[in-house]
């Protein structure tokens, strides 16, 4: 009897195809569009400090929480939950809501073409807002699909990870859909603090000693266990805190902009993409956990390029799998756009 049960089929081909196609590659927005990603992949977005990493996460989150279709209008989103763990504690929910509103308005095809490019002031005149139609109910439904947790140190992060399974389970019951994205803003946020923490010697030796290594191992193990139960795409940003050559370029760019009014200033623009020297600092256990890595950084702006004057151009380059070219993209309210 047991043997008969063993050779019985688990599922038919149709069921298998429908299950696998649900986990199929998620078409992501630039600059993540070059490589097909699936649930269960761990993508690391690395880059020096101001380089639009959180913006990329925000755009991916908006894409995920939008519905596929609502009242006849096709939005093309994934309609799943996003779990955002903020370790940097710098996330601004206003940014996300603005992007979402923008996307809703764009798609619902409202007649009034508000020029969002010039109206960057978030506290702008309230007269423009209520006239444009975006569905309040839809907006609320989408925002409910965005789950946000903030952690101020490694202990809170570990505690969050350990209880995440239960949280996601509860969210699944409330919303009826699963979480597709797990976003960790700045995985290296507690690197220095953990490295400097002394090992707490408790009485028994069986207790783990507190160190960077053990914390990273626990983090990786918890995420791995979580992915078994709730398959998700993990997007983690990482600030390259051991960078060297890019800090000066950033101030050079700003000081060039400040003095660009002076006509007698010589224009010494460092053109062309530079080779980014990138030093890995995360422990080996995390490095081997990551399946994909992309590097983003701000390109040196040409002051003569007036079209993108208020926006910086960013370069992105896939390191793992290693593709040999880099994309240029800019970030606007409406999203991330590739500039060829």
């Amino acid at each position, binding site marked *: 009897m047991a043997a008969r049960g063993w050779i019985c089929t688990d599922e038919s081909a149709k069921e298998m195809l429908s299950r696998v196609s649900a986990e199929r590659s998620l078409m992501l927005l630039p600059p993540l569009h070059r490589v097909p990603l699936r649930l269960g992949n761990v993508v690391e977005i690395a880059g*020096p*400090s*101001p380089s639009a990493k959180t913006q990329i996460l925000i755009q991916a989150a908006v894409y995920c929480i939008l519905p596929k279709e609502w009242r006849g209008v096709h939005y093309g989103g994934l309609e799943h939950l996003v779990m955002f763990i903020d370790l*940097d*504690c*710098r996330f*601004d929910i*206003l*940014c996300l809501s*603005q992007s979402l509103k923008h996307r809703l308005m764009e798609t619902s095809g409202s007649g009034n073409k508000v020029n969002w490019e010039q109206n*960057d*002031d*978030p*506290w702008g005149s309230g007269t423009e807002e209520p006239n444009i139609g975006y569905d309040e109910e839809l907006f609320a439904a989408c925002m409910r699909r965005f789950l946000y947790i*903030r952690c*101020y*140190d490694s202990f809170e992060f570990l505690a969050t990870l350990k209880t995440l399974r239960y949280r996601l389970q509860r969210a699944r019951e409330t919303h009826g859909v699963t979480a597709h994205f797990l976003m960790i803003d*700045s995985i290296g*946020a*507690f690197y*220095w*603090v953990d*490295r*400097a*923490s002394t090992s707490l010697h408790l009485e028994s030796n069986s207790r783990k000693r507190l160190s960077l290594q053990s914390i990273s191992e626990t983090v990786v193990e918890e995420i791995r266990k979580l992915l078994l139960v709730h398959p998700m795409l993990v997007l983690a940003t990482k*600030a*390259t*805190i*051991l*960078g060297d*050559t890019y*800090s*000066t370029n*950033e*101030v*050079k*760019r*700003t*000081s060039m*902009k*400040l003095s660009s009014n002076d006509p007698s200033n010589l224009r010494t623009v460092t053109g062309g993409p530079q080779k980014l020297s990138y030093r890995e600092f995360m422990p080996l256990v995390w490095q081997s956990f990551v399946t994909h890595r992309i590097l983003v950084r701000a390109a040196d*702006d040409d002051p003569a390029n007036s079209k993108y004057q*208020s*926006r*910086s151009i960013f370069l992105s380059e896939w390191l793992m799998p290693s593709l040999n070219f880099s994309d240029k993209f800019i970030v606007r309210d409406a999203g991330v756009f590739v500039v060829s």
Partner: protein
Amino acid sequence: MLLHGGLCVGHLTELVGPSSAGKTQICLKVASGVATRYMGGVVFIDTGNSFSPLRIAHFINQIPDTIFKEVKQNILEKVMSQILCHSVFDIFAMLDVVHQLEYSLRSQVQTGADQVRLLIVDSISSLITPILGGSGSHGRALMISAGFLLKKLAHEHNLAVVVTNHMVGGEGGILKPALGESWKSIPHVRLLLSRDPGSSICHMSILKHSYMASGRAARFMI
């Protein structure tokens, strides 16, 4: 002085600039503004003896609100009593003060007036630079945990936190903000100040902001 809508409550704002670019002046002006207009308490952590009550009185007297001398005197006294200045000279004293503030905020009954709304640390870089060693991680760890403490305070108790930073020479002689790469991801907003030599006009530009493009500049006079 309101720039792009003002300082965000719940954010950690960093003012970076070379010496005598006007960072302390801006801090004093903001402190006086918050104390008068919003009737909120201000905690000023001063590391270089740069806090000047005279200057604050000067800012307050500039506001053309009242004509009567007695009323003005009262306002002056009230405002001054809301600004608390602590002189600290090392990072542990600063952490002490901030922890004290946190305990008092947590145990405080919510009142409208006199609640601390603004925390200013003038020259956090002078507290941290001495402990940032070469490759040792303890200094950086202290810096980062101080940064997180300030952010936590700002977020949980609805304060605006302002810190100032100085500049150091980088490669090629170009000045760059002090405190290194790890500090860059701590403030929400970083503003770069500079002053034209010999004039009182200052430039300010956004180095980093959560949702505004960097590079916007403004000129003003204090």
